[in-house]
């Protein structure tokens, strides 16, 4: 297999130091909605200035470069083991170049490995697919947003939330309320309905790869996404929890089959700095974020 370590470093650099265009656009729209002179408007101004500065200097948008989550789709005949080893080398190099903060801490000794490698760190999801090209999606998800993510089990008595989409709506709003500004609002929600507990979180995080302006192909879910976005913003938690009109930038929901006895609703909260990037390799040519050769 060809050595693509440097291309993977570039994927990490792009994810850490720039925002996807749809997210930046949503932040600009949020800035327009807030009253000038409010703490909410000030926070969004700082966020937008920061994004421009980070892009210009190629420095991390946020110091918490999080857990790097790699979702890899590979064609028949590619070795996931070799891919993992190349991506791990790229992670070490990206840490050395200060695109990533060393974030892997051994819970037994309290020691930071210093290079972002550790047991279960970074996180990989490999899947073979029918396409004949390689796709690597990367999400950098910080600890603040991870701490306010939540999993509910329906029925949920405190909210009288039953085993239906109305119950889902109630617990998702509860999760947004509980997060307040702590996950770095305005956030983006990835929601998984159903599945087992572990798969619920994996699938909820997968939703975060969807562009903010896409439409859910399942009409019930599309309607629920719109309603939840509107209602979450009515909580008026606002940017950074300062109060304001934009509490969320988007809600993305997927549904998996569940066990008869289980009805989980898993909410993966992503901060405004939704640092996702995509790399594809077709016929030996590397492309990023759906763009042209080596560029967007």
């Amino acid at each position, binding site marked *: 297999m060809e050595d693509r370590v440097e291309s993977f470093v570039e994927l990490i650099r792009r994810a850490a130091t720039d925002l996807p265009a749809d997210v930046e656009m949503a932040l600009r729209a949020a800035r327009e909605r807030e009253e000038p002179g409010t703490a909410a408007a000030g926070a969004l101004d700082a966020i937008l200035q920061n994004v421009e500065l980070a892009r210009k200097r190629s*420095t991390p948008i946020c110091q918490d470069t999080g857990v790097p989550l790699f979702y890899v789709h590979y064609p028949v005949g590619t070795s996931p083991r070799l891919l993992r080893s190349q991506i791990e080398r790229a992670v070490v190099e990206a840490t050395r170049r200060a695109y990533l903060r060393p974030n892997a801490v051994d819970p037994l000794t309290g020691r930071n490995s210093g290079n972002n490698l550790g047991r279960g760190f970074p996180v990989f999801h490999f899947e073979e697919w029918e396409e004949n090209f390689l796709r690597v999606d990367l999400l950098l998800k910080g600890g603040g947003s991870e701490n306010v993510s939540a999993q509910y089990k329906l029925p949920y008595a405190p909210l009288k939330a039953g085993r239906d989409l109305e119950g889902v709506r109630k617990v998702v709003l509860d999760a947004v309320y509980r997060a307040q500004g702590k996950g770095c609002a305005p956030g983006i929600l990835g929601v998984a309905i159903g599945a087992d507990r572990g798969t619920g979180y994996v699938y909820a995080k997968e939703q975060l790869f969807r562009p903010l302006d896409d439409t859910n192909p399942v009409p019930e879910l599309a309607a629920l996404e719109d309603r939840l976005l509107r209602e979450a913003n009515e909580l008026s938690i606002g940017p950074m929890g300062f109060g304001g009109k934009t509490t969320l930038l988007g809600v993305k929901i997927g549904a998996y089959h569940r066990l008869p006895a289980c009805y989980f609703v898993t909410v993966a909260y992503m901060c405004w700095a939704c640092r996702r990037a995509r790399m594809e390799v077709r016929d030996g040519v590397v492309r990023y974020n759906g763009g042209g050769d080596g560029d967007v």
Partner: protein
Amino acid sequence: MAWSGTMEAEMATYELETPIPEGAIRALHVGDTVYLSGLIVTGRDAAHKYMVENFIRVEEVPESERALYEELRRLLNGGVIYHCGPVVRQREDGRWEFVAAGPTTSIREEPYEADVIAHFGLRGVIGKGGMGPRTLQACQEHGAVYFHAVGGAASLIADAVKEVVTVYKKEEFGIPEAFWVIRVEGFPVVVTMDTHGRSIHEQVERSSRDALGRLVGSAI
């Protein structure tokens, strides 16, 4: 109506330099913007646990930790602690620089912060997300405020860090968790908890709880 819209007329802007006199801190109100300058110290989870276990809830500071204790007493008296785990880079001459340095979530330090404020005579805590009732009470009693920095605005804030003076406990705690002593200029923050017992976080929490009750059709 969102809370932030109602306070406009009262919001003021200040420039403060560490060490900050108590009077200047007591003059601040929630909603005020402050540009901070001078020496500040980063400290987050490991640092707070360490300070409480080695300096505060002990009969005597262990011999091995005494030098650092004296140094922190000097820096934190009238000083400011910053909940931050930076991305840093070491220059060829061996000096460090901050590349990205936004705030981390403060509430994790709630079990410790009131004691740290009281013990060292802190005048301010910088972080994000706000803190709880014990810290708010310590702010009132000892003359300190909570400064909210913009979460995720890491490159922008790193711009305000003019010098990394020194670092303590880097090997033991790791880069994100170490005590970094930094000199800042014009570090932009908003006061969200003041010495008058007011907290934006408490107010937004309350109003959003009411809104949630309306949306889910039951009292929370």
